């Protein structure tokens, strides 16, 4: 394609990306280095059905004047990034000097919200991404070897977890694993412990969230791999068979190498998705056991008093986190393409 026609072709989507992706990120970046003005508090008296009480309120006129002078709020630079609810640099320093050993230091760090959430998010990403892909691959292999008339319905049922809205799917599972739900009671019977509760234990909650993650995202891997399997060169497969390759050897030496680029692409997408894990935490009401950066953003925006700067800072940190996680895969792809072009 000529450069000009390529540019004309790409221009609309580039513009849309600039407007709907790049511009909001810039706005979030700006918001994260500004905080609301120092509040002007005045002492007042509140009266109502239960009598009068001395209280305080925000002086709106003074606030309006401050806002007029500096509409963005006060510039705080990296303060919000470094405060206790985010990177907590000074708390980590304090933990380092106060800790009795390495184990104590880590438990102190993990008690800080950002690092606690990071621990869950990274574990979730590390477990769910490969397992969902492996499951998806095996589903694709088995569906591919089914007789033709059974393929349609099987594909439909395998895709169900992806079709069901995440919130609803998670909510249904949440009810099933309740101490009085069908899965919860079954587990109690198997373990012989009538007080066993998935929702009350942190390790079990983590496992439950990850099982849900794998359940809901395996179909995506399945669809992609299934499509990929249709492109495996039949000649190579046949010659492998003639050479006496077993079924497993054919998968290992013919199919898998053929699907590597697809795997890279999927890993990129799934790492990005899993790092932003959010819905299961809400629907499983798991916030007491597991939190993620996305959950923090939701909480900052949904609390009685909204923390916009904090939400903005967490958003930027999430973007940075995704970028760091993706960098090895991106670098690898870059090298592969470089090799091909050269």
């Amino acid at each position, binding site marked *: 394609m000529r450069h000009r026609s390529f540019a004309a072709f790409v221009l609309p989507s580039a513009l849309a990306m600039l407007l709907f992706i790049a511009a909001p990120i810039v706005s979030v970046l700006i918001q994260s280095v500004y905080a609301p003005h120092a509040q002007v508090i005045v002492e*007042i008296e509140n009266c109502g059905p239960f009598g009068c009480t001395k209280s305080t309120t925000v002086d709106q006129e003074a606030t309006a004047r401050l806002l007029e002078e500096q509409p963005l709020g006060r510039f705080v630079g990296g303060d919000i990034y470094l405060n206790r609810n985010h990177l907590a640099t000074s708390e980590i320093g304090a933990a380092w000097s106060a800790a009795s050993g390495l184990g104590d230091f880590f438990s102190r760090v993990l008690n800080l919200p950002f690092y606690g959430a990071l621990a869950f998010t990274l574990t979730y990403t590390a477990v769910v991404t490969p397992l969902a892909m492996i499951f998806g691959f095996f589903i694709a292999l088995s569906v591919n070897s089914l007789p033709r008339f059974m393929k349609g319905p099987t594909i439909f049922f395998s895709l169900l977890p992806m079709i069901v809205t995440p919130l609803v799917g998670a909510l249904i599972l949440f009810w099933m694993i309740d101490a009085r739900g069908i899965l919860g009671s079954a587990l109690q019977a198997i373990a012989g412990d009538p007080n066993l509760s998935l929702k009350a234990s942190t390790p079990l909650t983590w496992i439950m969230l990850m099982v849900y993650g794998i359940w809901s995202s395996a179909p995506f891997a399945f669809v992609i791999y299934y499509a990929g399997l249709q492109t495996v060169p039949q000649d190579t497969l046949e010659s492998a068979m003639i050479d006496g390759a077993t079924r497993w050897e054919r998968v290992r030496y013919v199919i898998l190498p053929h699907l590597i680029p697809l795997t890279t692409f999927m890993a990129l997408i799934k790492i990005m998705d899993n790092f932003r894990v959010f819905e299961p935490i809400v629907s499983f009401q798991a916030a007491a056991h597991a939190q993620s950066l996305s959950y923090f953003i939701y909480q900052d925006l949904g609390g009685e008093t909204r923390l916009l700067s904090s939400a903005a800072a967490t958003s930027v940190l999430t973007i940075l986190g995704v970028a760091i996680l993706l960098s090895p895969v991106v670098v690898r792809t870059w090298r592969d393409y470089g090799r091909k072009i050269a």
Partner: protein
Amino acid sequence: MHHFKKALLAGVVVIAGTAFAQAADCGITAKGRVSIVGNEFPAIKSVAAKAAECDNIEFSSNLTADHQKINVDGMKANPPAFTSAIIANSSIVALMNEDVIRPLDDLVAKYGEGINPQQLITIDGKIMAVAFMANSQHLVYRADVLEELGIAVPTSYEEVVAAAEKIRASGKMQNPVGGAYASGWNLAQEFVNMYIGAGGEFYKPGTAEVSVNNAQGVAALETMKTLSGYMNPDFLTHDSNATSAEWEAGNVALMNMWGSRTGVLMDAEGSAPEVHTNTKVSGPLTVGSSGVPATTLWWDGWTVAKNASEEDAAATFLALKHGISPALLNEETMGQAVWMIDGYTPAPVNEGVFKTMAAKAVPYPMLPYHGLLHTALGDNIADFLQGKESAEQALADVEAAYTAAAKEKGFLN
């Protein structure tokens, strides 16, 4: 053809007749828009439905448990998406902080006839809301279970624990205590109750500096942990709805519950007769010897958006005044709340809230920064209840999380 026309005409008359029967003259002279956002429970639904009856208005309402996530933005717009927010004494603070509601003094002077002075919520001398109901958390108990085991109705959390032990030992119920302990807002609310009951003060006097990491804070947390030992092990996921479901299933005999939610527990729907006929309410519980009940008083009321035009503001005021007029009260609505409306006669289900008021419970704090503390509490005390850390550590985390947020918001330097 002639007959057909006649039938059609009759139909039109009937429809017009019903419309006429529904429309009420609320004194609205200039046509205006009335758009209400608020929480979703029976009493508020009734008020909104009554307000919708007024003629000369364009009415819409959005009642949802997530009302606090949308009301500020909806009222900030000009013209506002909502001309009124129905709020409680905790949630009016967010609207005040963002300056999205207007003083009602002029509207009250012009149209306020029939509103009791004690319904007017004045902040710094300006009327900012009109309250229509009172609410509080108080004890709900199963009369049959207590009677059978010879237990007197508890008045303190210490007695609740003793009673729970007796019930568990009798084998009647494994986890006889209920409570909305879902981590987040509900759990924080239970701490607020317990801390007030233990005689604690949330802030250093005259400042926004938090101080909950003290003997009262530890005592409050210890009591909560002891109670949670008698609760369904999933208690950290149980909000008011889930706790009510546990009650209706007959698994619970004692709980601290909202007055506005007890009507549902006492009706025949959703539970066996032995459960709903034996569901009784009592006053607030105490903890320790402070003498202050471990609960808070709440009012629900309505506001008018600052950005609403004069016509819309007047129409909203008049429609909502009609919504909380004595005409609202009938057999169905009477027991839905402790109404601050003339002609209201308390039903047995409302006794708990009255006892709470009589026991001199304190209102939920209406401070501009208290929402931040409530959030910090909801995020951090679950770690202690799960045995992951000490009470002191959990409270230190609460203070640190609040301080960071309050600094960001400009309440602290």
